């Protein structure tokens, strides 16, 4: 199953590497959001560190959505999804493959967005880089896991690009709340004990969503 998942992920990444459409649009979106928020705030009233957690996760969330939309949309052209479903491929492998490709995609966007964020908001990332990367990784796994599942559901609807955010945003409340809370505490150098509750929430969310997605994905592609 993992071999098949990797084949599908490698194919998706190769297609994205060649076109770069979703990646570039996510990066442009990221730069725009950060620039707008940066120029919209009054630094004498609000410090960059106060605003930073919310803005960081708004940026990640919407830039990631642009990429998730593409995951199954690219299988609509020439009905390639039929080709995958006809092949002796476990549907869980199909889900995992798509999720791996999405994880690489969103992770790459985040890797570019973080330095931009540090520059725009004058947030010193280096002292908090370790814990921050941990939080980003945990929240991204949950984000991608639910996003990949809902992207498969949305792709068969008439307005798939609109439907995905509508379906997804309610499910993002727990991980994004957790991630924002954790990021704020990390930036404020709060003690580790203050983080554990939100960390447990992120871990629990990831486990529940990944397991649930693997179980129900099989039924999402039925006509």
């Amino acid at each position, binding site marked *: 199953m993992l071999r098949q998942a990797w*084949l599908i992920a490698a*194919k998706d990444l190769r297609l994205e590497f060649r076109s770069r459409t979703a990646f570039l649009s996510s990066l442009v979106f990221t730069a725009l959001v950060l620039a707008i928020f940066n120029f919209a705030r009054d630094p004498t009233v609000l410090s960059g560190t106060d605003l930073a957690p919310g803005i960081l996760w708004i940026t990640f969330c919407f830039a990631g959505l642009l990429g998730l939309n593409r995951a199954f949309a690219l299988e609509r052209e020439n009905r390639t999804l*039929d*080709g995958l479903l*006809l092949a002796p*491929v476990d549907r869980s492998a199909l889900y995992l493959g798509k999720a791996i490709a999405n994880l690489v995609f969103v992770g790459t966007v985040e890797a570019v967005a973080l330095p931009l964020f540090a520059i725009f908001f004058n947030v010193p990332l280096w002292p908090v880089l370790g814990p921050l990367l941990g939080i980003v990784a945990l929240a991204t796994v949950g984000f991608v896991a639910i996003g990949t599942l809902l992207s498969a559901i949305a792709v068969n609807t008439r307005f798939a690009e609109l439907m995905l955010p509508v379906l997804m945003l309610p499910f993002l409340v727990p991980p994004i709340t957790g991630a924002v809370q954790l990021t704020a505490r990390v930036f404020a150098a709060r003690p580790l004990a203050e983080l554990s509750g939100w960390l447990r929430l992120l871990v629990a969310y990831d486990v529940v969503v990944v397991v649930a997605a693997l179980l129900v994905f099989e039924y999402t592609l039925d006509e």
Partner: protein
Amino acid sequence: MTAAPQSTRNAQSGAPALAVQGLSRAFGHVRALREVSFTLGRGEVLAVFGPNGAGKTTLLRILAGLLRPDAGSVALDGAPLVRGDAAQRRRLGLISHASLCYDGLTAAENLEFYGRLYELPDPRARAREALAGVALADRADTLTWSMSRGMLQRLAIARALLHEPDIVLLDEPFTGLDQHAAAGLREQLARLRSARRSVVLVTHNLEEGLDLATHVAIQVGGRFAHCAPRQGGVAEYRERYAHLTAGA
């Protein structure tokens, strides 16, 4: 009317290669398929003719396992078609209206990708071989978005036959092919028949279909209005088709 033509039985299991019993499927209040039944043995070719909207594509999608029927069953060599059964998937090949190939990959990359999914030995060599089989060897490194309709159709044929399925489902396979490519496809289908593969061929073109068919079905309003071993020539079938589809 539901009919089941006589068929050559699988010598080992005694079951036909493909047995369809009472298939029905509706989309909302539209009944696309109504109690379709037939059996097909090895080396037999069933040509399904019918007007637009008769349910031919729905039938093929159910046979391919892409669509669940509301009622009825499909069996391969007597074993019920199970969606997740990898061994059964390897036995089926489908040529549909779309190429099922990625625009952003070359012809060879597309086939190699599918070859790997089907776990074929040396998928790269198999992809080149399959492209040569549809006269696309010189287009192996061409991105498929730049291919003509006819080339895409030939690529779709190569993809469907890549893993040498023993039940081949074809939905209007001659669409977009020039005379030379159509002749090539006819040769390929004749080879499939002599290799004792079972073929279900959906087409509007009576001449093309009858040329290869051992059995003929005429589908009207989701039902098989006629289903029997082929008897007679094009003129007789044309007359029968006109009679059965009058008013459809």
